[in-house]
C-alpha cells in the first residue's frame, strides 16, 4: 500500500517536501510501519523520528493503529509552539 504523509515545520524543511509518499508491504499498515517506512523514504528525518508521533485523521495514533485507505496521515515532530 502507498501512503501519503504530511510533513510540517523543520521536518518539511529537512525532507524538502510538505508531503511524502511511502510504500509499505502490507495492505493494513500500522502507525509503526509507516514510521519505519519514513526512515527509508526520507533518511534526513531519521534523527527526529524517535521523538515524533503519527497522527491519523487529526488524532495522535497508537503504535499498532491501522492506517485505512483514505486516512489523512501526518508526521508530528519537532514542534515548537509558544
Amino acid at each position: 500500500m502507498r501512503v501519503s504523509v504530511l510533513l510540517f515545520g523543520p521536518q518539511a524543511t529537512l525532507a524538502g517536501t510538505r508531503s511524502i509518499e511511502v510504500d509499505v508491504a502490507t495492505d493494513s499498515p500500522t502507525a509503526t510501519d509507516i514510521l519505519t517506512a519514513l526512515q527509508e523514504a526520507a533518511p534526513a528525518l531519521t534523527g527526529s523520528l524517535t521523538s515524533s508521533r503519527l497522527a491519523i485523521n487529526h488524532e495522535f495514533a497508537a503504535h499498532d493503529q491501522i492506517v485505512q485507505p483514505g486516512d489523512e496521515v501526518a508526521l508530528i515532530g519537532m514542534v515548537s509552539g509558544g
Partner: protein
Amino acid sequence: MNERISVTIVEGPLGPSTTEPPANAGAWIVFEGIVRPYEDDRPLAALVYEAYEPMTTGELRRLAQATMMTHGLLTIAVEHSTGRVAVGETSFRLSIGALHRAEAIEAAEDFISAMKKGVPIWKTREFA
C-alpha cells in the same frame, strides 16, 4: 462545550488581552510569549508559526482540559498565533483563573512545557 476552557488560533500577532478572571478566583495569571529580537545572537525579524488545524486546536483543548483537571483550575484560556509574528509582538497567551496561587503557577508551567513538547505547532525563523 465547556465555557471554562477556551482555545483560539489567531492569524498574526495577538491583540491585547480581553479575558477576565472568573467570579471565584483568588489567583489570576496571564502569561505571554513574545518574539525576541535575537535568536542565537542573530537579529530576528519575525517568527512564522504553522498550525495543523483542526488538530492543533483539538490538542490545545485536550491539554487545557487535562491541565484544568490536574490542577483544579477554574478557567483556562489559550490564544496562539499562526503565520507571521514580528519581533516584540505576542504569539502566545495563557490565562488561568484558580482559587489559589500555587495551582495557577504550576498549571501555567505544566501547560506550556507540555505544549512545547507535543502540540502540533511549528515555527520558522525569519532573520533580519
